[in-house]
């Protein structure tokens, strides 16, 4: 029978995961402000513009506003609070 060895686990220590709730959903998007968040990835500006045009043509009662974070892939509390203050929903993309 082959000799058995006790060896160390090479992995680091993950942080504790703390569950968070999703925000309540809307009954309808009609008359609501939907922020289109251009996450700054290459060509996402064009994607968001096409999304804006889609809403204008297909769901004209939805009010869309386009917004960008100050930098790619970093937290932007100011932008998030602007969305919460002035908006009802947000579509973020295209995050890769």
């Amino acid at each position, binding site marked *: 029978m082959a000799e058995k060895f006790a060896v160390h686990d090479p992995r680091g220590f993950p942080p504790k995961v703390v569950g968070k709730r999703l925000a309540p959903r809307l009954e309808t998007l009609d008359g609501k402000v939907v922020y289109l968040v251009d996450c700054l990835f290459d060509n996402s500006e064009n994607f968001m513009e096409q999304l804006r045009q889609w809403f204008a043509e297909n769901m004209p009662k939805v009010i869309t506003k386009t917004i960008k974070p100050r930098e790619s892939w970093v937290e932007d509390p100011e932008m998030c609070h602007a969305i*919460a203050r002035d908006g009802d929903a947000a*579509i*973020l993309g295209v995050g890769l």
Partner: protein
Amino acid sequence: MGLSLAVEELGVPTVPVHTHVFNRLVKATALAGGVPTLRNRFVPQPVVGASIETLRGYIEGTDPVHQEPFMKGVIDALTQPLTDEDLKGASFDREIPALLEPDSEDNLQALFRQNRWTDMMPVVLPTEERVEAMLKGTSVPRDKVVGYMRPTVFREAWEFNVEKVAVNAVMAGAAPEHLPVILAMTSLGITARSSSTTSFAAISMVNGPIRKEIGMNDGIGAMGPYNHANTAIGRGFGLTCQNVQGGSVPDETYMGSVGNWLAYSACFPEAEERSPWEPFHVTEGYDKDQSTVSVFFGGWYTQSGYGPRETWENKFRRCLSALEQYVPPFIVMDPLVARGFEEMGFTKQKLKEWCAENSRLKARDYWDDMAIQTLVKPHAEAGVEPFATRLKADPDEEIQIFEPDEINIAVTGGETQANFKMFAGRFSRGTGGGAARRRSIAVIDEWR
């Protein structure tokens, strides 16, 4: 996805949109964020480079992950009431055991490979005895936290201590005297296993007395597999990064499209004694008797040449304009090349300035780049220099693409050929934004 979680926490429903190849990564990130039911939606890959018509087709087409019309999914995600699962969230601890269940060498090698704790080559199994022996390479307590590591900025950071670095150093085949170097490298928090789609690697360079003390090679083949210390330190750095950060698994925690061979091992010492210039760490403000390690983040490209020959200026201009313009060059030259420049009257600083002045592209070519569009353009639009000036340039105007302080020069090699290389290698002094927030140099002596 971090922005989406932040907005949800403020009470506003969101839909993060991704391309379909990131489905597994998105699920893992949402779970680690405590929101496993985050309502992501997907369009086909790629968005980068897609025409307006293609993008519109994605919007009017089918979500390739959920197999439903994309816009129906987006609207449902914002309007369908929350389920019990949505309301629960997910809180949990992930315990990592100190020791694994005892098993045979063959089974443990297979386990490490299956769990992707290796670089797919056999490792030295980190038995208790070997880890104890490795820890004798440092006087720092085994439970001291060395730092935090993550595959990329939007993933969670995992903590790691001296013992975890020692475990991975054993696996890499390192010796105890190599451990302080690996500890210093990892303390910087710059991962050698970035998950970026662009396939980064980290190149590291050792300066100071420790190079000789541990027998590193700055002669023939300094950047190749010809020296135990060079190779084992580089491999140990990579294995430590991938394991302490929670993995480097393709399609989960690694998304580099083509990968990078430099990720196996890329560590060398500077040939300080044979360089005509002051050592790199002295230029950075350290004493020559201090030992340091510098981590250059990049590895995207390599340019190569000889000289300085009669037409060196043309050669350097061609090399500099051919570099991927997001990551500045780390120029490594054989002592023969360095002495040649020195005889021509170049100091290191003067050569850096010449290279910066002659790193030029037409503005159109500079801006037509994925990384520049994604990471630099927002700064330019916000008025940050020198990017704002570059953005104002006429598309046909030639603009300078690197600054002198971004370009770094070091000397190594065996003087069998007057050869130089230019590697993608970002070095940060910890004073900038974005990728330049972290310092790229650490003092090894603090980890002895």
